[in-house]
């Protein structure tokens, strides 16, 4: 079984997983409206790290927060990060893309390459292996976890360190603005008045290993799947094709009643949330509570799959289904069980669901103590 050994989140809500969970549980977010930031003519709402706090001429902010997050995750483990039996998998959509701006001259252009960014990280830790960078749009964070599961199952490594990261910039914000995908206010996942997404910075790490026996309180990554809509490179499928198929494979023969919740992608765009409601209904999971964390963090892109999995594990540990911040009234065709209040649960498993540009979708089944 593939087991989670340690984890960490670095975000505007804190630098430990515990601090992040506490903030989310109490309904806090770092979402703010920015007007004129980075020379952008249109205002936007985002959850951003303090860039001055990470200013450095040796490492970019992405590299720094990955190194920080991985370091903190490894703190109470006995993982020898210099061993060839340890693999790094980084999940990111745009990495150091802000270096393409001619006005940003601090680093050599080669650091725009995701592999170079990842090597900065493995070099810091003295790890001898070539890092794997998963860049599969917004589902990267779950893909990276599925990759980790596969590498561990194959026996090639003893530990896989998965770190998802993305940091916002004019490049990314302007791009989503050109798609008219951003909400002028704090986002409202699954809500009837939702107007689009917010964006966010974060780095999140999970360390995985393979074990034959697992304790009741150990988190097991049971099954994951990635499927494509085969429909359009940016618009979600009207039948939720890829999302439904990924969900079906991840769920497998697990009874839906055993799921505490589905943590959806829930970006609060008109199309995504509608599509997810279709997919969840098709998969026979309409009775399972659904939530979205985008109202606390914004969309953290390459970090999202990892960050949202960690928060979800902590919620189950806390016997809690986190409320969907920003949600008031259901605004999708298929009735989903969404609430803006925290709710109690005794269940011990959840599914993390994501979708991304390129028609890709991913689902991951996590169960405390494994499948029983």
């Amino acid at each position, binding site marked *: 079984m593939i087991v989670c050994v340690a984890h960490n989140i670095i975000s505007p809500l804190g630098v430990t997983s515990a601090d992040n969970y506490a903030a989310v549980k109490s309904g806090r977010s770092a979402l703010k409206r920015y007007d004129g930031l980075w020379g952008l003519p249109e205002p936007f709402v985002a959850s951003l790290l303090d860039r001055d706090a990470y200013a450095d001429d040796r490492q970019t902010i992405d590299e720094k927060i990955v190194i920080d997050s991985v370091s903190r995750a490894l703190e109470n483990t006995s993982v020898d990060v210099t061993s060839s039996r340890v693999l790094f998998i980084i999940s990111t959509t745009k990495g150091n893309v802000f270096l393409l701006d001619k006005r940003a001259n601090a680093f050599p252009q080669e650091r725009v390459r*995701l592999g170079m960014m990842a090597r900065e990280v493995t070099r810091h830790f003295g790890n001898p292996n070539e890092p794997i960078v998963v860049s599969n749009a917004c589902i990267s964070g779950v893909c990276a976890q599925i990759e980790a599961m596969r590498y561990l199952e194959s026996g090639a490594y003893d530990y896989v360190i998965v770190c998802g990261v993305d940091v916002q910039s004019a490049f990314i914000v302007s791009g989503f*603005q050109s798609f008219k995908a951003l909400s002028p206010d704090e986002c409202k996942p699954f809500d009837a008045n939702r107007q689009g997404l917010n964006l966010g910075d974060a780095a999140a790490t999970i360390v995985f290993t393979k074990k034959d026996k697992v304790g009741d309180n150990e988190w097991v990554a049971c099954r994951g799947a990635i499927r*494509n809509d*085969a429909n359009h490179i940016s618009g979600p499928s009207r039948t939720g094709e890829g999302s439904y198929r990924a969900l079906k494979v991840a769920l497998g023969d697990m009874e839906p009643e055993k799921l505490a919740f589905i943590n959806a992608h829930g970006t609060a765009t008109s199309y995504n949330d509608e599509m997810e409601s279709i997919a969840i209904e098709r998969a026979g999971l309409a009775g399972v509570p659904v939530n979205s964390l985008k109202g606390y963090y914004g969309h953290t892109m390459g970090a999202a799959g990892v960050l949202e999995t960690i928060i979800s594990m902590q919620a189950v540990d806390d016997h809690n289904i986190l409320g969907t911040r920003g949600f008031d009234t259901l605004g999708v065709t298929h009735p989903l069980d969404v609430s803006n209040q925290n709710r109690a649960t005794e269940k011990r498993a959840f599914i993390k669901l994501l979708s991304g540009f390129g*028609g*890709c979708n991913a689902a991951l089944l996590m169960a405390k103590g494994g499948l029983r």
Partner: protein
Amino acid sequence: MRHSVIITPDHVIVDGNPLMHNEKGSVLLTELYRNHIGDYPKFFKMDTLSKLGFIASELLLNAEGNRSFEPREDRAVILFNRHASLQADTAYQATIQDPDNFFPSPAAFVYTLPNIVTGEIAIRNKYFGETSFIVIDDYDEKIIMENLKNAFQDPMTTSIIGGWVDCSDEEHFEAKIFLIEKEN
């Protein structure tokens, strides 16, 4: 490996046999489109990485033969490269670089993710299976093959279009992809 395709700015090789062509560089990609595909106008909206991967996959699938375009979930598309979506990123950056000529282009932005090429291949062929993209800083066949072998752990995947599809700018690109079946 049952089938393979190599495309560089100068060469095109399908299953070990050179394919005739007159052009080189970016014009070569257009020539290949017109001579071997021709019925997919969306091609002209693609960035160079997507054009490269799309054409390479078309030649690969033509080599396999029996093209049906019937929806299937058992074939994965898993590609690797060094430069991610750099050519598309550079093209998009140009639309926002100058504050006095600031017109972010959605058509350019959508290609600023390396996995879009896998989506284009999935759409063309109605592949509902796994699509993924991985970046490593040097071409490494061992890493690629190990990763593709691992992908067969998905219980439904029986074949994979996998390999290297890289592009740093419109005139510099390289594709080396394979059609791999589970039994191999």
